[in-house]
C-alpha cells in the first residue's frame, strides 16, 4: 500500500515536502492510524503524529486524508485511493510533520465559555431537566474537539483569529440550548459583531467532515435565530 505523507521538521527542513512510503502485509480492516504507527515503528521513527484512544473518542488524530479531514483511527485504509495522501489539518500552523498547533482553535473554544453558568445560588441537589430539555443537547454534547470541522472551514482559514469556527460555535449553542444555563444574554452579546459568528457563510464543510456526524451549521443557524428572537 502506497502513502504520501507530509513531512516538516523545522530543525532541518526549510520547506515541507511529501515523502513516499510503502507498507506491505496490510491486514483487512486496518485503520490509517495503525498504518502510521507501523510506518513509524518499521520505517521512520522520526515520523510525528498525534494519536491516543484509537477509537474515535479522544479526537487526537485529526488529519487531512486524501484531501478530506477525518480521524486516522476510524478511517479504514480499504476505503482510500492510493497513494494515500496524509497531511496535517489545514489552516493551522504546523509544528512538525502531521502535528498542528491547536492553540488558536482552543482559544476560541475557551472564549465561548464551554461550561454552565448559573446566576441563582447553587441548589442543594442537582438542577433537574425534563427529558425534552435534555434531548435538545443531543447532537451537541458529542463533539470531541478534534478540529476537523473548523480546519475544513474556509471562513476559519480566512479569519482564524476572529471567526470562532464551527467547533466553538457548536459548543456555544450547546450551552445556549441548555435549560440549566443562565448566561444567554452574555453569550449572545459575546458573539455579536461581523466576525465571531457572522463569518459563517453556510459552506457546510464542517457538516461534511465531522467524524461524529454533528451539524455545526445548524447550531450556528439556531444561534442566529435566538439572537433575532431576543432582539425583537
Amino acid at each position, binding site marked *: 500500500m502506497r502513502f504520501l505523507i507530509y513531512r516538516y521538521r523545522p530543525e532541518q527542513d526549510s520547506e515541507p515536502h511529501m515523502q513516499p512510503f510503502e507498507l506491505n502485509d496490510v491486514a483487512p480492516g486496518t485503520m490509517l492510524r495503525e498504518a502510521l504507527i507501523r510506518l513509524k515503528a518499521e520505517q521512520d521513527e522520526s515520523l510525528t503524529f498525534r494519536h491516543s484512544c484509537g477509537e474515535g473518542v479522544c479526537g487526537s488524530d485529526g488529519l487531512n486524508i486524501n484531501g478530506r479531514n477525518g480521524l486516522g483511527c476510524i478511517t479504514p485504509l480499504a476505503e482510500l485511493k492510493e497513494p494515500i495522501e496524509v497531511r496535517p489539518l489545514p489552516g493551522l500552523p504546523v509544528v512538525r510533520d502531521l502535528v498542528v498547533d491547536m492553540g488558536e482553535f482552543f482559544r476560541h473554544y475557551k472564549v465561548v465559555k464551554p461550561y454552565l453558568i448559573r446566576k441563582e445560588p447553587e441548589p442543594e441537589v442537582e438542577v433537574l431537566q425534563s427529558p425534552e430539555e435534555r434531548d435538545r443537547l443531543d447532537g451537541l454534547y458529542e463533539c470531541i474537539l478534534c478540529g476537523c470541522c473548523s480546519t475544513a472551514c474556509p*471562513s476559519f482559514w*480566512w*479569519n482564524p483569529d476572529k471567526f470562532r469556527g464551527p467547533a466553538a460555535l457548536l459548543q456555544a449553542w450547546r450551552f445556549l440550548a441548555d435549560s440549566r444555563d443562565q448566561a444567554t444574554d452574555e453569550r449572545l452579546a459575546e458573539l*455579536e459583531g*461581523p*466576525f*465571531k459568528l*457572522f463569518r459563517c*457563510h453556510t459552506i457546510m464543510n464542517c457538516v461534511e467532515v465531522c467524524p461524529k456526524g454533528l451539524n455545526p451549521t445548524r447550531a450556528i443557524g439556531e444561534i442566529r435565530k435566538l439572537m433575532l428572537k431576543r*432582539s425583537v
Partner: protein
Amino acid sequence: MSETLSGLRAWLLQRLSAVYMALYLVFLPLMVAIVGPQGYSGWHDLFARPVVSVTSAIFAIALLLHIWVGVRDVCLDYLHHPWVRLGVLSLLGTWLLAMGFWVARILINVSV
C-alpha cells in the same frame, strides 16, 4: 466599519432585502404585462405611477444595501489589511451612494 450594521443587523438586512427584491421581480413583470407599455412615453407613464415608482425606489434601496452587505462580507473575508479594506469599502460606499442618487433622480424626474 459601521457598528450599527455589524453582525445580526447586516445579516437580517441582507435576507429581508433579498425577499423584497424577489417579490419586486415578480411584481414588475406583472405590471409590465398588465399595462403593456409602448415606447418611451408608455414606460414613462408606467414608472410615473406611484405604486411603481415607490416600489422601485424601495427596490433600489434594497439592492444597494444588499450589495453593501454582500461586498463588505467579501472584503471582511479576503482583505485583511485595515487600510486596504477601508479604501475598498470607501470606494464601494461612494459608488453605491452615487448609484442611489442617480436612481432617485430618474424616479423623481419621471414622477413630476
